[in-house]
């Protein structure tokens, strides 16, 4: 793909990365990454370990240099500037608070380096301590604070010098599950209040969906899709995105005109997925979009997929999880989740024959250009 972009194109974005590529030795870590982050926007880079997400963050902050591509912060090309001249605010996974400095000294650091007047520094510390609710911890040292408090100090410390963008490196990785959920809501609320563009990286899909205005899904150094949480979940553009974000049942087949065909299965597809000639494609259905009925009970509301036999029924709290062996050429097992209203109306047990119907699904046409990467990066 050729990229011709004039400076004007970066106008509104707080952060733009263009064609970023990076290899470490023989391992390709990033391959032609393009995206932007708007003012006030939170973008989450989601990927497994080794997907290259940390490298993107390090390249934006200047701690790593790309082999090719550009980093633009507020219309300024910073690709060749060292980290200290970029003015990004990085919140490290370990927070990286300076252990020999008090909370106030940590927050003051960026301003002291910039030789700001004392009065301004003191006022900034006061304002930020209030913002992150740490007024009474001003004189404490990092080792005397809890993980959540340390994180807030790290954020305040970065905000002190009005960063171009806040970069969060797996900020909740070191915390336990209950605190994580609470903290990410607090931080999202805080970021929305102060309106600073932010990039998060995480491998936790739930975190990505909840935290981001947009989610960028990375796979082995390539950007698979970047869109709103609703879009990436409901309209995944690749099989990887479909399976990485939530569970997905996948059926290989062919789209011909407005029909998807896989062996005995025929499903009518929407106009936008229609083709002029037969094309290989995948049918993707979320477990909650698959409905199990007695063969005679499948109403017109659903498109019939195939019959199957219940293999396993398990209770997982709010939902029931059912594994069904489908009567299809490859005999795939599909996963279905059913809400309480449905489990009460139509209880299921292993061995039972059912018919599966769908309302909502996604057609993914095979892209011949999307080869699997030769080597996987290990970060």
């Amino acid at each position: 793909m050729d990229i011709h972009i004039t400076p004007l194109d970066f106008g509104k974005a707080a952060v733009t990365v263009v064609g970023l590529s990076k290899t470490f030795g023989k391992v390709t870590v990033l391959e032609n990454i393009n995206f932007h982050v708007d003012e006030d926007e939170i973008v989450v880079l989601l990927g497994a370990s080794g997907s290259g997400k940390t490298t993107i963050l390090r390249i934006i902050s200047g701690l790593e240099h790309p082999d090719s591509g550009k980093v633009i912060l507020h219309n300024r090309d910073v690709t060749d500037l060292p980290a200290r001249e970029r003015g990004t605010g990085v919140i490290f996974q370990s927070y990286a608070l300076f252990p020999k400095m008090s909370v106030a000294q940590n927050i003051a650091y960026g301003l002291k380096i910039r030789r700001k007047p004392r009065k301004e520094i003191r006022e900034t510390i006061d304002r930020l301590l209030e913002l992150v609710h740490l007024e009474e911890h001003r004189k404490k040292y990092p080792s005397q604070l809890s993980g959540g408090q340390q994180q807030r100090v790290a954020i305040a410390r970065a905000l002190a010098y009005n960063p171009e963008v806040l970069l969060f490196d797996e900020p909740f990785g070191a915390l336990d599950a209950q605190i994580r959920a609470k903290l990410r809501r607090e931080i999202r609320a805080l970021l929305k209040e102060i309106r600073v563009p932010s990039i998060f990286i995480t491998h936790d899909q739930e975190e990505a969906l909840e935290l981001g205005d947009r989610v960028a899904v990375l796979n082995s150094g390539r950007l698979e899709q970047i869109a709103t949480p609703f879009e990436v979940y409901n309209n995944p553009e690749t099989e990887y995105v479909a399976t990485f974000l939530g569970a997905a049942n996948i059926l290989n087949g062919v789209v011909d005109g407005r029909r998807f065909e896989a062996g005995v299965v025929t499903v009518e597809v929407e106009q936008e997925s229609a083709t002029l000639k037969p094309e290989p494609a995948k049918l993707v259905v979320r477990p909650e979009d698959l409905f199990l009925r007695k063969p005679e009970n499948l109403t017109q509301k659903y498109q019939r997929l195939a019959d199957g036999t219940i293999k396993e029924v398990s209770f997982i709290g709010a939902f029931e999880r059912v594994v069904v062996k489908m009567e299809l050429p490859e005999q795939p097992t599909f996963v279905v989740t059913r809400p309480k209203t449905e489990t009460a109306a139509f209880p299921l047990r292993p061995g039972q024959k059912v018919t599966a119907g769908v309302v909502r699904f996604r057609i993914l046409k095979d892209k011949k250009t999307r080869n699997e990467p030769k080597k996987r990066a290990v970060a």
Partner: protein
Amino acid sequence: MATNLSAMRHVRGFDVVKPLSITVMIVVMLPLILLPLASIFIFGTGKGLASFWAALNAPEAIFALKLSVVTSFWATVFNVIFGLFAAYVLTKYSFWGRNAVIVTISLPTAIPTAVAGFALLLLWGPYGTLGRLLDPKGVHLMFTAYAIILANIFVTFPLAFGVIKPVFDTMSRSLEEASATMGASRWQTFWHVTLPSLRGAIVSGALLTFARAVGEFGSTILVSGNLASRTQTAPLYIFAKFNEGQVEAANAIAIVLALLSFVIFSILFFARDWFDAD
């Protein structure tokens, strides 16, 4: 027998092994460490404090103590700064031969001090590899205070490095990276972030180096020439006076050196936590 022993171990809830093992430990230490140290003090003050003071106040004795402190001080200054620098370089950069450098820095620990002194003589002495070139120019390093500093540097070379390097190793890289993203230059990062974390290690390294240098004998006796009131350090003074049969004179200085090392080791023992406290 086995039953006897286990019966003995606890007499009405009293653990016999505890006082027994402590006693054994002390008894072993007594003739080896504690009594020799005690006898310095007993003997040195045996003829009254007045003669102890007189022995201390001898001009040669005062000179020897001063020379020891001054030469050890400069060796310490050099080795702490170099140790810090070397630890920084060896932590931050990986390069071909890096491990060889680390081994070389640590090597003086394993070299007998007499060998170290002899090696310095062979290099810097009037007929030495480099000394030969300096001699016609009137520069004589050996048999001067500089020779003593050189010997002290050689012998205590690995000490400060050995204390500082492990602290560098455990220091999180992200601290320096955080400092850089916040706008700090390398020097600012080193000064404000790296150095404060090394305070404790620097103080310990300096004290260890100084303590070792003050007591150095084997290399100094070779390179200094042992000239009274010129190149005679405190340990050499003890040796010289003992050889001359002036045991009181030797003893007075021995007491001072022993006390000095007590003080240094107390600081090392107790102050490290204080320096490293967050």
